[in-house]
């Protein structure tokens, strides 16, 4: 299972902002799409990621954080994934490095975003499926009828 399999069943593209946009606008996007992070892009190239945490951190110390820009608060050193990256490795990297949102890039172009929740759900379904299939085969070995 790889990142492409997650993106395939996530119809929407990642929600993007421009670094010059305000935090007020960014919050409106997070609220409207019910998501936890936005990807800052220049053209279709990701240049940063802005998570709800970045905003909370700023809000805790700056009353007028609404007026700041996405570019001020975003994380610039973004780890990105590629569609063929396998989920076992991706899950490891995301949990170890405490990344909750991973922009996915194909040949430099942003093609989507996966969250740690997406990755864990895909892994859970994968293991559930394997257990189910193994059980079926084990029960079959105990003298069931073939059909």
């Amino acid at each position: 299972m790889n990142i492409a399999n997650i993106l395939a069943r996530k119809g929407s593209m990642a929600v993007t902002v421009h670094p010059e946009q305000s935090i007020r606008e960014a919050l409106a996007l997070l609220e409207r799409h019910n998501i936890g992070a936005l990807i800052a892009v220049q053209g279709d190239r990701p240049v940063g990621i802005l998570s709800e945490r970045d905003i909370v951190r700023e809000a805790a110390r700056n009353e007028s954080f609404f007026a700041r820009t996405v570019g001020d608060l975003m994380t610039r050193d973004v780890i990105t994934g590629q569609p063929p990256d396998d989920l076992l490795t991706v899950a490891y990297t995301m949990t170890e490095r405490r990344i909750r949102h991973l922009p996915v890039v194909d040949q430099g172009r942003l093609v989507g975003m996966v969250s740690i929740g997406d990755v864990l759900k895909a892994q859970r379904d994968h293991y559930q499926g394997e257990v189910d299939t193994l059980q079926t085969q084990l029960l079959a070995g105990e003298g069931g009828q073939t059909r």
Partner: protein
Amino acid sequence: MTVTTGTPARPLRVAIVGAGPTGFYAADHLLRNPTVVVDVDMFDRLPTPYGLVRLGVAPDHQKIKFVTNAFDKVAASPRFRFYGGVEFGKDVTLADLKALYHQIVYCTGAQTDRRMGIPGEDLTGSHPATEFVAWYNGHPDYRDCAFDLSQESVAVVGVGNVAADVVRILCRTPEELATTDIADYALEALRKSRVRDVYLLGRRGPAQAAFTNPEVRELGELADADITAIPQEVELDPLSRVAVERSQDRATLKKVEMLREYARRAPTGKSRRLVLRFLVSPVELISDGAGRVAAMRLVRNELYATSTGALQPRATDRFEELPVGLVFRSVGYRGVPLPGVPFNESWGVILNDKGRVLDPDTKLPIVGEYAAGWIKRGPTGVIGTNKPDAAETVECMFEDLARGAVLEPTRPEAAAAEALVRQRQPNYVSYTDWLKLNEIEVARGRAQGRPRVKLTSVEEMLAALGR
């Protein structure tokens, strides 16, 4: 007066397109709902149900096919109907289904193979592995395919479960195959096979190979084929070693250990040789001058880590040539677009969000249309992986029903659907018919000590039903 949909007076009428595992899992989740009364009509373009369990799973893996017992239980529901031999887009259209059902679920799988995209790919003797699989499993559309088994050297590109199935079938003895439900014509053709060397080619290293440990073990236990590997290719490279050690991935360590043992084995004089190769990619199929495959040019790969740490292959400047007369490619699968249903070309699936089909312009759900299984997420996982996948789609369907977001069919009655099918495809196969065909196949098999002898053409099946 408004009648609520999903009650005994007005059941929720659902059409499932595709009778593979996902279709049955979706039907099961739909019919199990304790508060909504659901009618399920399942359509398949073939007369027989079970999809790839019948026509994909290898004949020497009968145990995997036991899952069909669970499907038969689903089909036994009085609220379930099967319309076999009825093709979506041909015998019944989307407009037809919209006039008859509140919801439609597409479970059509990934029906085509990905291409390698290299020169010579279409030379005679180069085939998609899926064609060979469908052929030896008795798929009515593929029974007339021909594969030149007089060739002595064969390459199978890919190291997933389909590739492993193909090399096993090529390496098994006629005696081994004769105890399976392999199609009779395939058994005859394989009996005359002159294949001696079979190469299984992986583009990444042993730690990244998709085949499972039981599959690897099976390849080392073939009655009349010696397995071998190249020692340097099955050693873990430093990047893979770090990845495996940090994730404590015992299964992968075990796999690599088995492969290293194969590389140390001395040939024991069996008639066939199975060679496992890693870190190589075909870059060209070379012609014999008359349009036939004579050899394959391979490039050696090395691995590099992407920014998530996933390991991907990168071509080096080292090449080699492998003389082979027959090539099967098994480098991935893709869904096929359905007439009138939005398709996501990037991933080869129906455009969807958690199974809700989306309008390509607005990216909003289209009322009443859903997808599940491989046509929703791409070809990945084992049969059982489609169960939670179908459950997610069915959850969306019940949520939408609760919001009143369902189609408004003009004739939401089971009888209306049956009348239409009868008119368009008088020779459709019901589940009762299928159970009869099954009994006939099993009886034919019993006489030969086989699980079944398959009926492999639609005409044969209809004749067996007295039509």
